[in-house]
Every structure is written in structure tokens, then in C-alpha cells.
């Protein structure tokens, strides 16, 4: 500890920020692993498609309900990289737009479930043993008592079947995992001496939670978020496979696969291509998550 501090001070004197140095080191480690880099590239590509999708899609009008009978059921070619579907729409264009909506749903789910789950977990962990903590953990258990996919489907259909409610449905099933994880980490942190000292010196609870506890668990949460992104996209695509979530004619990857099954085996690209895209996206997020996990968990040690 002492030497580390000395080093940090020395580094500071030389005009180098130790935080930036640590980050550089992590990046070096991360970039040495080709699989992690592959994951990062895939994820960046997905983000790129999500932002610029509408401008780079070769046939933007094919996202909607258009019929070009003359061009229907064409195999993959230069003009149509992934072939065309029964209405003559370009499958590649539809896959890009479907990728975009997968990512948006994934981000929406995380945007709802992570803050909710983490805040509840912080409260429950800090007040362990008290009524409020028991209540929160009980609620968590309640939402974990049925399969997440079923819960998400029930919530999604109960209101309006669509984009937003698919995300809300998945989020309802997802937040308990963050609460449980935060709870476990906070309860083990509570016994650390520096937390006890901070408490004794009369620092407000909110400040302890936000500036002492939260920074210590952020890296674990970020890693989990990256790994979860893959699972959430899988769940969302499973839901759209049975018609829950993004509604036609808007394309979604799961729905494309399920629509294509009727045209197997002659027109295999209708199912195989979008299914491969789902696998690629999930693979990307998982590789990235594992890479982050390696770097961050070593850093903690």
C-alpha cells in the first residue's frame, strides 16, 4: 500500500496521472487478448449500425411493407447480400434495422433495470436485517420465482404489445439480479474498516452509499451489464420469434427467423442469415464481457 502511494506521488510529480496510467495498463492487457478485441469490434460495429443504420442500409424502403414480387426469393448475391424474402425485400437491409432495434431494446432494459436494481440493492445491503431490507429482498425473490421469459411475456402482452413494453417486460424480470448482486457486495463491504470509520465519523448514509460503496462495485456491475446485454438480446429475440415486441412490418431478427421457417429448405437464407446475426451479436457482447471481467477482476486483486 505504502509503496503504491509513493509511486503514485512520484508519478504525479512527473506530471503523469496515475488513473490514466492504470487505464492504459488495463487497455494494454485487454488489447493483448484477440478474443476480447474481436468482441469489442463486433460491439462497436453493432453500435455503428445502430447509429448510422438508416443512412447506410442499401434498401431503406424495405424496412416497411413493400412488395416487389418480381424480386422475391432471390438467393444471396451482389445486389442482395443476404437474398430477398417472400415480398422481394432485401434481407440484409432488414437485418441491419433489426440489429438496431435489438440494441435499442437491450439498452432500454439496462437503463431501467440497472439503476432500479442497484439502488434497491444498495438500500437493502446497507440496512441488512432491517424491515426495509427484508421487504426489498422478498420482493426480489418474488420476481425471481417464475421464469424470466414468462414474466416478460406476461407483462408485455398485458399492456400494449410492442417495442417499449417488450423492454419493460424484460426489465421487470431483470432488475432482481442486480439487486441481489449489489446486496451481496454491499453486505460484504459493510464490514470493511474504512466503511465503519466513515460511519463513525458521522458521514451521511447517502454519501456513504454513493461515494464509498458505489465506486467499489461499479466494475462488477459494468462487467455484468456487458454480459447481460447478450442474454437480453437473446431474450428479446426469443420474444419477437413468437410475435412479442417489435411489430411487423418493422423487422426484428427473431421474427425474421420465425417467418422464414415456412420457406425451409429452399429459401434457407431467410432463417439462417438472421439467426447467424443474433449469434454474432451475442457472441460479441459475451466476449467483451469476459474480456472486461479478466481485466477488472485482476485489477481488484
Amino acid at each position, binding site marked *: 500500500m505504502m509503496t503504491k502511494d509513493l509511486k503514485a506521488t512520484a508519478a504525479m510529480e512527473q506530471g503523469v496521472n496515475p488513473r490514466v496510467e492504470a487505464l492504459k495498463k488495463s487497455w494494454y492487457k485487454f488489447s493483448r487478448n484477440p478474443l476480447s478485441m474481436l468482441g469489442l469490434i463486433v460491439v462497436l460495429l453493432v453500435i455503428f449500425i445502430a447509429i448510422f443504420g438508416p443512412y447506410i442500409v442499401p434498401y431503406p424502403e424495405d424496412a416497411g411493407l413493400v412488395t416487389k414480387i418480381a424480386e422475391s426469393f432471390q438467393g444471396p448475391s451482389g445486389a442482395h447480400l443476404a437474398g430477398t424474402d417472400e415480398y422481394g425485400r432485401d434481407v440484409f437491409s432488414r437485418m441491419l434495422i433489426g440489429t438496431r432495434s435489438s440494441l435499442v431494446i437491450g439498452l432500454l432494459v439496462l437503463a431501467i433495470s440497472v439503476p432500479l436494481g442497484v439502488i434497491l440493492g444498495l438500500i437493502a445491503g446497507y440496512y441488512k436485517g432491517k424491515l426495509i431490507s427484508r421487504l426489498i429482498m422478498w420482493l426480489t425473490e418474488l420476481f425471481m420465482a*417464475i*421464469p424470466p421469459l414468462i414474466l416478460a411475456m*406476461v407483462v408485455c402482452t398485458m399492456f400494449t404489445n410492442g417495442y417499449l413494453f417488450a423492454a419493460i417486460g424484460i426489465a421487470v424480470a431483470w432488475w432482481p439480479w442486480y439487486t441481489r448482486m449489489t446486496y451481496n457486495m454491499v453486505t460484504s463491504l459493510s464490514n470493511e474498516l474504512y466503511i465503519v470509520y466513515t460511519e463513525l465519523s458521522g458521514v451521511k448514509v447517502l454519501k456513504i452509499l454513493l461515494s464509498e460503496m458505489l465506486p467499489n462495485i461499479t466494475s462488477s456491475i459494468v462487467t455484468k451489464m456487458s454480459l447481460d446485454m447478450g442474454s437480453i438480446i437473446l431474450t428479446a429475440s426469443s420474444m419477437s420469434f413468437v410475435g412479442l415486441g417489435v411489430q411487423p412490418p418493422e423487422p426484428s431478427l427473431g421474427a425474421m427467423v420465425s417467418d422464414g421457417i415456412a420457406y425451409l429448405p429452399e429459401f434457407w437464407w431467410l432463417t*439462417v442469415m438472421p439467426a447467424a446475426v443474433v*449469434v454474432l451479436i451475442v*457472441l460479441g457482447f459475451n466476449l467483451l464481457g469476459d474480456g472486461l471481467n479478466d481485466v477488472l477482476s485482476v485489477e481488484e486483486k
Partner: protein
Amino acid sequence: MRKTILAIVKKLLHTIVLLLVLSFVVFSFIRLIPGDPVRISMGPMTPEETIAQKRSELYFDRSLPVQWAHWLKGVVTEGDFGESLFTHRNVAEDIKQYLPKSLELVFYCAIFILIMGVLVGTISAIFKNSWLDNLIRFISYLGVCTPAYAIGVLLLLVFSYTLGIFPIGGMPNIPDNYVRTGMMGLDCLLVGDFALFGQVFKCMVLPVLSLSLGSIAYMARIHRGAMVENINADYIAFAQVAGVSQGKLVMKHLMKPSFIPTLTIYGLQVASLIGNAFIIEVIFRYPGFSQYSLNVIQNKDPYGIVAVTFVFGIIFAVVNILVDIGVAFLDPRIRINTSE
């Protein structure tokens, strides 16, 4: 031992309370559904009086706690889950018809996953860092990232359409007088009709494979990790020095402790199979409970949804308790923790 039993009983009670609350929450959820499910199910031409009568029959005109209490009384005393507005039968009958079929599917998957997951994981761990291990790890990683429906479609394309080995979906008709348990394969065996069992079996191969492969991949990863960790443990080195035979070393000292994380994950995987089965049932037109659940949910059938969530809750709870018992059995150090 007594402590363990006590803990399990405590957990059981805890679960029952949880399930009761869950059903109440679902009831209140259903009340929030926009639109009147009774009216929707009876069509727009139905006279107002008939709808009102139906509503009162189904206790939809009472307050939420009254409706819930009435439902609970029916479930506990007569196994009556209320009438489905979608199949127009008692939900209990629907459950009896569809649930065994899904349970049979999941049962085959569960056995297959356990054997294959442990086998592949063990091979991978024993030949650690060899080309075989790397290949297995690569395929496992891919398997975890692949949705069940993609595996289903791929298997369908290869084995049904291209090679023509297995049927493309659907199940053979089981004569009514065969029905004993409701499980299609088992009923054929009980009656002694092996030809029909063969057909049922053939139809189930692809659904079972599509549903299991992802979980096998995951199980193999976890089991490999657990074995590798234990191989390097001091007590293994000690046992080796003490002259324990290689077979005994692997089977008793290495396998047994490695099963603890594997078993925990196994329980989660089996429980999730039940939830994920519906996609496979849709692809292969398998007449199971998951497909029924999907219909019920999509048709916003109130008593159907309550029953479906309740049944899934029970299955989840049972699997969890079984896993706890299994883990306690394998590792005497672990005390089942019910404090939370």
C-alpha cells in the same frame, strides 16, 4: 441431517407463502389489463346481460381480495383453477392435458444435459489445454451464445430437410384409450405399443437436442472450471502421494466436489428449460404446456395466466429445493441457508 430436513421444511413453507403472494400479484396485474377480457372472449354481439352473468360467475364483479380468495379456495379444495376464457374449459383440465407432455420433453432434456454436460466437461478438464479441450471450449462458447430457436432451425434444416432422418415436426396421434399419465412416450410404453413409442421417440429427438445443446455447453463450461480448480487443490496432490489409485482419485476425490457448482447450475438450467421450451414447441409443433402458456398469454386469458404463472412458480420452487437437497447431500459442510 435433522438440521437439513428442518431447513428444507422451512424453505418449503417459505416457498408456499411466496407462491400465494405471487398469485395475488398476478391477479392484481390482470385487473390492470385494459379492456374487459370477458367481453372480448364472448364477442361483440353478446347481450349485456350474458356478459354480466359470466362476469359474476367468474367473480370478476367482486373486489380483488374476494376474487383471489375464491380462486384459492377452488384450487385448494377441488383443484379448480377457474375457467379459461380461451379454451372454455377448466384450466385444471388444460394443465392435465398439456403439462405432462412438456414435463416429458424437459425430463429427457434434463437427463441428456446432465450426462453430456458432465461428460464433455470432464473430458475437457482431463485433457486440459489440448486441441480437444480447445475445440470443446470453442463449441461450448458458441453454444452459449446461440438461441435455442437457431439451433432448432439448423437441426431441422440438416436432419429433416436435407438428410430426411427425422420428421419436420408434429407428433403422432396417441389414441385416447392409451392415455395414462399424459406423457406421450411413457403412455405408449405402459400400454406396450413399442411401434408407436418408436414414432414418438423419433419425433422427440430434434426438440430434445435443440433444447439441450445450449445448456450442455454451459454445463460443460462450469464443470470443466470446477474440475480444473480441484485438480490443483492440495488435497488431490496429497491423495496422489498417499497412493490413491487413479480411478478412485478421479471418481471420488475429484468428481464429487466438482459436482457442487455443476449441480447448482444444473438446477438453474433445468428450470430455465421449462421456460424456454415454448419456442421449441412452436418450431416443432409439439402440443405441450409452453405452447399452451403462449396462447393463454397472447389471448390475455385471466385464469389461464394465473394458473400458468402459478405452475411455473411451483416447478421453479421444486427444482430449487431438489438442488438444495442434492448440494447438501454432496457437501456436508454446506448448511442450507434459509435466513433470507
